[in-house]
């Protein structure tokens, strides 16, 4: 089991899947920063001054890390960022779920209008999805332990 989990192909698959998920999440937000700022505002967790910087920076950080994961460029650094972001997303969702404050996730851009019950249900699914992605990120970090940071073939052969 351990061998299967740490098999290079498993690691490659996890890395690509995680990277693609983050690229897919980033693109709609990059194309509409005001919409994402509104989504962040709805969480009622962030001070007003932080909304614009977050809405502008986060999607690009997701895209850069997603591309890095897919291309195998600094994959551990990217996986650490991604894991940190996922934990932050899960905390934000959990706080709002705990106080039963329905918000549109905003994870993959703006969503259509929902009822409050639908939103809360979506938030639970988003939480589960983030947990799954976090497992992928942890696999990337685990499989990358003891390996060179630049896991491309050229660097791998040098060390």
């Amino acid at each position, binding site marked *: 089991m351990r061998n299967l989990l740490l098999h290079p192909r498993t690691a490659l698959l996890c890395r690509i899947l995680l990277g693609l998920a983050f690229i897919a999440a980033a693109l709609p937000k990059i194309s509409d920063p005001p919409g994402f700022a509104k989504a962040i505002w709805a969480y009622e967790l962030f001070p007003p001054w932080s909304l*614009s910087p977050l809405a502008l920076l986060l999607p690009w950080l997701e895209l850069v890390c997603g591309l890095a994961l897919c291309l195998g460029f600094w994959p551990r650094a990217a996986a650490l960022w991604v894991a940190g972001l996922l934990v932050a997303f899960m905390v934000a969702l959990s706080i709002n779920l705990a106080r039963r404050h329905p918000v549109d996730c905003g994870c993959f851009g703006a969503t259509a209008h929902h009822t409050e019950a639908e939103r809360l249900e979506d938030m639970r699914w988003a939480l589960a999805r983030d947990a799954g992605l976090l497992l992928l990120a942890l696999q990337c970090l685990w499989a990358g332990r003891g390996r060179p*940071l630049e896991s491309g073939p050229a660097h791998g052969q040098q060390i």
Partner: protein
Amino acid sequence: MAKATSSLPLQMLALAGLAGIAALLSNLSAPASRRLAWQGSLPVPALAAGPSQAALQPPPAPEAPAPKPDEGIRPLPPLAPLPPLPPKAPLPVAPSQAPPAPAVLAPAPAPIQEISAAEAWKAFQAGTPFLDARRSADFAEGHIAKAWSAPVWESDLEDRLFSFKAARRPGPEDPIVIYCSGGDCKDSHLLAAKLLEQGYFRLLIFREGFPAWVAQGRPVEKGQP
């Protein structure tokens, strides 16, 4: 390996820096409707603790008379064009030196009120200006006839409001109807809070918003603002 491990934070910083540069360039080249000011322009501070509950009150009875100047409710000077009050202007309440005449003195109306679809239709027929607080793309797909686009989340909101004020020259007491997409949409409340800060004291939020307007077959238009 030790060297490689110690460079992990540097790599993370480099990734973040790359994202920051990309965000900067992307935002610079974005059209106004998709741009964000890095600081300050979002209309959220007034709403941080909820949608203007302090300034909001249920819709008045439709036949409630407008306050008359001789009732001493609001001794404002005759309407000067566009006299935005200072941001810290007190909310419009009855002055303390007003004569104690409860039979005559109606309570001062809250500056932000919610109105129903029927009241919105009356306001429309009376020629009251309508402001559409939704995104400009939604406005282009369809909006209340003759409404002005004022998307609260877009970077050119101030320019759009300036155009509206220059064209309609609303006085601080003139009613302005604000709407968004109904339901739990808070954009119209955000816009109302912003206009209140700018010195407008009769802001009517059409709470059911554009979907109700369409459902009732009221006049709509399409196209860019």
